[in-house]
């Protein structure tokens, strides 16, 4: 099973051009790249036909240096059927219309419809289709302007939230670095549970957060080992935070029937938990045979949201 990851986010204070609206003072657009999905951008509305809420990123003349192969929206509150959830590219401008502007409704260069990345685990049908709050897509572009667009008129909150927006490059551990089949990926859902003397359970759902243990074994190529080493250095520079798609072999599922959505693997914004010893490895022999290497990961919390 290949493991895909993204470390650096191209969106920052310099490249984020603007958003269609923002709910100040608490939920402003700078939260899109604060590496804290629990503190989001909150648009003032839900968009309407022809007038979406949007996030626009402007790489300007340097766009050639920003090869975008991964785009992700983390901790959104979109419903299961928004009218629009797209990533678009345009060479001219982030602004719509006017001299030198981009016609983002009809004159853009390309569009990726991301709506199919919202619904997961809907096999029971009916009401309880589960909306996963993270949506990711692979692409390969170097255009100057990227725009995420949202129209979700049925959103019960009355506004759209985006915890984190990411444009970056995905990587995979190459060569023979694999998670072993039957990997011990134990999701640990953070819940408070108390049990009384007589067996009564009192459980609390806390914020959505999940733990992983990724174990790599039997890596016996010095180049693979160095690749892992570089990965660790990059992640450490990024505060231990990165994006991971643990099961990335079904990323492009086939949409064979309209009623059955294609399956896309889940993506997570995670932090490394075993900070002190996560680089401890058992290395054997002259060729640095790595027998076992364990990474403890935890998804960044999505926080609590109150009604009203």
């Amino acid at each position, binding site marked *: 099973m290949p493991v895909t990851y993204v470390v650096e986010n191209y969106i920052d204070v310099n490249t984020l051009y603007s958003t269609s609206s923002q709910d100040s003072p608490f939920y402003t657009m700078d939260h899109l790249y604060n590496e804290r999905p629990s503190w989001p951008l909150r648009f003032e509305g839900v968009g309407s036909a022809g007038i979406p809420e949007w996030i626009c990123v402007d790489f300007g003349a340097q766009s050639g240096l920003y090869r975008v192969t991964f785009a992700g929206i983390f901790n959104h509150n979109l419903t299961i059927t928004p009218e629009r959830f797209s990533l678009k590219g345009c060479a001219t401008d982030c602004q719509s219309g006017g001299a030198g502007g981009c016609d983002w409704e009809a004159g853009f260069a390309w569009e990726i419809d991301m709506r199919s990345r919202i619904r997961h685990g809907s096999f029971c049908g009916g009401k309880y289709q589960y909306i996963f709050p993270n949506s990711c897509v692979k692409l390969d572009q170097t255009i100057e302007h990227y725009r995420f667009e949202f129209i979700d008129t049925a959103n019960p909150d*009355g506004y759209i939230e985006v915890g984190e927006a990411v444009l970056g490059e995905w990587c995979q551990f190459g060569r023979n670095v694999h998670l072993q089949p039957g990997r011990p990926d134990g999701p640990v859902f953070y819940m408070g549970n108390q049990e009384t003397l007589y067996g*009564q359970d009192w459980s*609390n*759902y*806390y*914020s959505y957060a999940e733990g992983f243990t990724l174990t790599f074994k039997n890596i016996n190529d010095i180049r693979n080992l160095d690749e892992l080493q570089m990965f660790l250095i990059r992640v450490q520079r990024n505060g231990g935070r990165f994006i991971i798609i643990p099961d990335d072999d079904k990323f492009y599922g086939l949409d064979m029937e309209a009623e059955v959505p294609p399956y896309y693997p889940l993506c997570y914004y995670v932090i490394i938990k075993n900070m002190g010893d996560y680089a401890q490895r058992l290395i054997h022999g002259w060729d640095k045979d790595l027998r076992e290497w364990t990474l403890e990961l935890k998804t960044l919390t999505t926080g609590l949201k*109150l*009604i*009203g």
Partner: protein
Amino acid sequence: MIPYKEWMDFDIVTLEGHDTVNNAFDDPIDWTNIHYGYGIVGTYTQGATNWWRWFTLIRPKGSDFILDIPGRDFPVSAVIDYKATSTPLYWHPAGITQLSLNTNTLFENITEHIWDADKATGRYIDGVAEEWDNYPIWTGHWFCDTIGCPGLFAGTDIDRTDVIGSPTPPPHQIQVELAARFAGGENMWSGREYFFRNGMCLRVSAWAGVVNYNKAAFFVSPERCKIKYFNPVVNSFSRYRISPAGGDTLVINGLGFDNSDADINEFCSCWTTPCLPGSTWTDDVDKIEFWTTDGVLIATITSGLGEFTLNSNSQITIASMPALAEGTYYVNLIKQTVGTNIGALGSATGYAGDWRTDSYGRMSEGSRFELLVADEEEEEDEPPNPRTRWRWGEHDGEVFAYYSYLDTRGRDTFWEGRIKNMSPLTRMIDDRTGLFGVSDVSVTLANNDMEMSKMLSRYFLRNKLVDFYYGWGRQAEAWDEYFFQGVVIDYDLIGTHFDVMVQDVTQKYFGMDTAQHICTLEEYPFIHESAIGKSMPDALGLCELIPATADENSGAIEARYVDTRAGFYSYLAAQFSLTGITEVYSNNVEIFTPADYTVAYRDGGRTYIDCTANQGDNKITYNCVGYSVGIWDDPTNGYIQNPAYVISFYLTQIVGMPLALLDMESFDDLAALYTTNNWHQSAKLILQDGRDAMEVLRELLYSFGANLWIAKDGRLTIGRKDITNFATDLVIFQQIHAFEHAKREYNLQDFVNAANVQWDYIPTHSTFKYAEEISSPRSIEDYGKERYPSTPWHFPWLVSEISSGGAGLGLVEQRMREELLKYDFGYKKISFKVPIQMIDDLDIFTNFRYQDPFGLSWTKEGEKGRYYYISSLTYDFQDRSIEVVGIDLQYLIGQYLIIGDCDALSSDWTTGSEHNRIYAAVSDCDTGRFSNGDPGKVVGPCDTV
């Protein structure tokens, strides 16, 4: 009953006029630029070219005394209570035979001018340079001639004989009203803007018999301003969550939904023109609106279309709620046109929850109710999430910060998930003394991103309030509930950690000595050396020590010798106005008025004993009836005697605690309880020397058998357990709720079955007036020995009667008995730990029943619900638990045979509920069992029945 708001603190200034030209006071120079921060009204004619005049402006203190506060902007009428005190010294010689005391609303012509409470003088409105726009100020500034009715005291004459006839004339208690008169003349409605801007003016007028060198003056002190409002007030909804589909029934309870005309017209009858001749007010709630929390009107229902029913002045029923989209809504109640039939005044409105009323109709500020429209299942698995609000201070203001364990997004607030650790919090009552206790809390906040380092570079936290509250996920932030309010006492910054120590907010007030005012050379240049630095005495209730034998210790309180000059010989009796001084002693020899002394009130209401002859180094002591505060006074005797109000006076006036920190409703309820038992004249308090404020409070609570605790809302709440207060529907099950077996403590090392009791303390002579010995023969017999407490039981602030004079026990005897009952078979408690989910159900003093399979039972069946009340709660959000300590109510219930209501209870033991079974039931005489075989009680010796 109409919702009302009352104010008890006032801004007050006296404006002094001194005209040496023509007695017209019509030039600015006719007014002195001296600021007087207390109240005098009067007149003085000192010859043909020397006239003096004083009048007093009063205005309820606080930023909330303004007209346009949402939900409290439509006044009905006003009542003002104040005291006026004069003495022969201030009314002499006999020329002026009558004075008229008037009250007016103050109309300031210059728009937006408000007199400066700290600086205003007769000359300047701001005490500096801004002149009043007209002199004399009493022309062109009265909005109405006189508030009040001709039949009432104000506006009529006070005879000189009222003052001169008594050597220590009591204060005149005066009430004036501003009626809701609608047509003609001045009234609350037409004068509301002036009234709320500049308050009232008290003055004398129409004096009869004035000649030169005549002076007549009163010290005046305002006590209460009560204003009724047309605005409807909602206290509760029958449900706070309704279905989006609509159709649910919602019952709204509150006050002022349709006031009676008689209540509105209460003060109108004395006017020559009645308020509403032949008409009605029609002030019913006839429209209800539902608004989203961001201000969009979504739905409206009206009574006219039958969409809701006005059941009474205090209840509205919406039989079928309209369908509303998911979300939270504010509910606005509207009286579309008050006074339609007599000329419309406009709409009186009120959002539900903005204001609440207590059982008397008194309004206090609340948070706006949010009606949650959502399907029920969304509430599953919601965690109680503690949240905190911090005030970072800078030299000229504060900024708020919000921290929680977890990033939490609300509509109006974002709580940063910055709390790394928070120690458990304990709120408790020490049941042995009645005193409250709150643990300190330490909070560790994350500083990994240097946010705390940044804040500390500019702001400070010391002495700033921190609010702790909790809410549940997927609910509106307005539903958050307080569980603690603290004040920051210290903090440490340790790299990535910021550790803060927080202490209970009341410590801000209690870390003090009761002697806030002492006698100084600066204030009293001619003070006797023995009085320098001594505290000014305070006295509440009946304070007297009259010896059976002359020359023994006499007089309950020692006065301070503050003016030794010949012709003055003045002794400070108390720092406020005593209601009366009954006996005075000089070195234990009684002296008499007016031959030996007179009582005077000066310097803003202090009480003095002015002796006619020099008493030298003699110790001057006196007996008195203490302070009076109008509404807290004993209705018969006219001064504070009720134990509940002695404590409220102590907390507010001596400790200086703001009223907002006290749950005054609980004090009123407790006062009523004392009155019901005929104990309402049993309390006193003498503060002779400075003492630790908390220690005095402990003595008061213990004397009166009262408990004081900090409720979840952060306010000090008072109560007393008695037989009317033990029933409960709350049952805590060992087998469901408790994490481990409950610990039943017997505390037999504390058991006491005999005690010496002393009460009615005289601090001046360090003596108790009364003592008694009591014992519990049954406990002595069972345990085979008498056991006394290590020190005698002291009830220092109870006055002397053993019995109440009626059929019941006096408070002294009641206190002795209940203390002995509490301890004569140990001091029984229970402690256990329950899930944090129960936080909404549990508060201090809450009664509960505890189900315990290991409870005491002869048949080994355990206990299905023994009665306790909560004395301590420890919240531990990290452990997700609450530790509860309960006091066994056996000592209380065991004193009674509880009969119950014959019609409401089952006649048969088998079919009786567990709750029914606490009431008296008699088992079969032969078998000693009830109808289902349970062992029972037999009444008397069976074979003789």
